[in-house]
């Protein structure tokens, strides 16, 4: 139940894109069609779901003072986190290239760029700041990945729809995507303020 709460909170209430505005670059660039958005969304869920537990192990077992090395190495956090994320992204890239060359081609540079997607590093840093345990970090990784996936799917479907709209020329493309993101942020505020943990405790 506790893991479920964290999942729901990360996916809907503290959505990476629409509440924190993290991971915007690939969100805006790859959201032109639902199919590619779906592929990139899955890749982000995978990378977040894998890197968060690994980073948790690294941060708790190696970098922390209470870890195996017995030294405070937290200043290495960013470098090691990025290294883990980069290697995982490389793994995803090889899998996607092997399994679905069409998706690989349509994602182009944005697949390796997941490495520097701030939602992923942000996820790891939030995990450290909120002092999650191992199970919670898995739930948080999958939940925030799912939230990102949902946001990019929704905006991709909207952008496919407004391709037939008479948008003023100055706003076509990215301008419209920014306005849309803002409006979607308003809509997502509906769930902000719900505290699943407090509700589960019964107050």
């Amino acid at each position: 139940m506790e893991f479920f709460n964290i999942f729901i909170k990360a996916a809907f209430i503290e959505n990476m894109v629409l509440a924190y505005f993290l991971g915007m670059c690939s969100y805006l660039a790859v959201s032109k069609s639902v199919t590619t958005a779906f592929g990139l969304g899955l890749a982000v869920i995978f990378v977040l779901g894998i890197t968060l537990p690994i980073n948790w192990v690294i941060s708790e077992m190696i970098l922390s003072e209470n870890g195996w090395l017995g030294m405070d190495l937290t200043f290495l956090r960013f470098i090691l986190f990025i290294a883990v994320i980069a290697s995982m992204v490389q793994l995803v890239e090889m899998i996607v290239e092997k399994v679905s060359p069409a998706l690989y081609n349509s994602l182009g540079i944005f697949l390796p760029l997941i490495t520097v997607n701030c939602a992923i590093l942000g996820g790891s840093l939030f995990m450290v700041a909120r002092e999650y345990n191992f199970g919670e970090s898995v739930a948080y990784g999958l939940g925030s990945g799912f939230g990102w996936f949902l946001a990019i799917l929704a905006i991709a479907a909207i952008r496919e729809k407004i391709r037939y709209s008479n948008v003023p020329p100055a706003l076509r493309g990215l301008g419209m995507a920014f306005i849309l993101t803002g409006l979607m942020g308003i809509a997502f505020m509906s769930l902000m303020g719900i505290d699943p943990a407090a509700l589960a405790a019964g107050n």
Partner: protein
Amino acid sequence: MGLLDFFKRIEPDKKKSPLLHTAYDAFFTFAFSPNTTAKGGVHIHDGMDLKRTMIHVVLAMQFCYIFGMYNIGHQHFLAIGEHTGLLEGLHLKLAFGLVKLLPIIVVSNLVGLGIEFYFAAKKGHAVEEGYIVSGALIPLIMPPDLPLWILALAVIFAVWIGKEAFGGTGMNILNIALLARVFVFFAYPTTISGDEVWVAGLADQGAGLAANYGGIFTGFFNWIFESFNWTTFNNGALVVDGYSGATPLSLAYQGGWEAVTDKYTTSSMFWGTIPGSIGETSKPLILLGVAILLLTRIASWRIMLSMFIGAAVMAMMLNAWGATPFMEVPWFYQFYMGSFFFAMAFMATDPVTAASTNRGKWIYGFFIGFVGMIVRVLNPAYPEGWMLAILFMNVFAPLIDHYVLEANISKRLKRA
């Protein structure tokens, strides 16, 4: 055909004054359906054009307007303890409501239509009808004492960013009326939430909270009422001791269904003599509007039914959970409170922002009910959930349509 002759006589020159002609065209097509035909492409002509469709929706709302006008006055007089009977002082209540409601309607339409006219002239085509319904809906979902400049700002935001940026009528993603309300809700929260804002004419009078009517009441209306020997507006009446304008929802949040029934009867909640947004309170009159919309087949019964089912399912699940007093409110009583029916009838069924496939409508409606009940009961930050739930599902409506279409395509491919 005196009216047609009149219109022909005053038609401005299209070349010399395009803005004037745009305005003229808007009012002309309001009265008559035009007999010009489109030149390029294939068009289907039907007597039931966009303008006629929109007018049916506006007509379905008129009951809410009349009752809303009465209820503004009724709630005001309940607060100061005069004319507490339903029909006592009816003329006073209607006059008070009219003076509160009329400026809201005028500002909403003037600002919204002004932007529409400006953009129509700029884009060089006829005025689009989209704002007729939004402009009629916006006054109904605002509290009666909302400052008019806030209303104007909200309308500007909704029409400009929410609609014109997307290319005008029929292309917006989020519901315009709800976008205007959500703007007020997040930008000026104190004017639209809390226990004080739902009763008109009391909030801005400081500590004593005495009724203090302006010149229009004591001068103009009293002059008329005195000539009939009717009761008149009197300054100086104090708010009744222990009176609170708390809505059933805020009471339910604090103390569950018992706290609600301590103050309101179920029949007053059903008939709508409770504080709330101007048009949302009276359930039978909204259902009358629903009947009109369904008989003329303008609104989708699928969305209405599935939204009801979604809300009922979620409310039953919350009943089963029962962790707070609000969750224990029996599920069918949830529909007595708040604006569920208003949102169901006029907001969720907006054909532009809803899902457009039939199966998509079922999914869309169900999730509005489901999410709305979650926001209402579980979210302490917001008193009511339907506005935000509908906006939330507006965002996902194109996605639902996309996958419903994909599923259909792959099903047919398999069959072929």
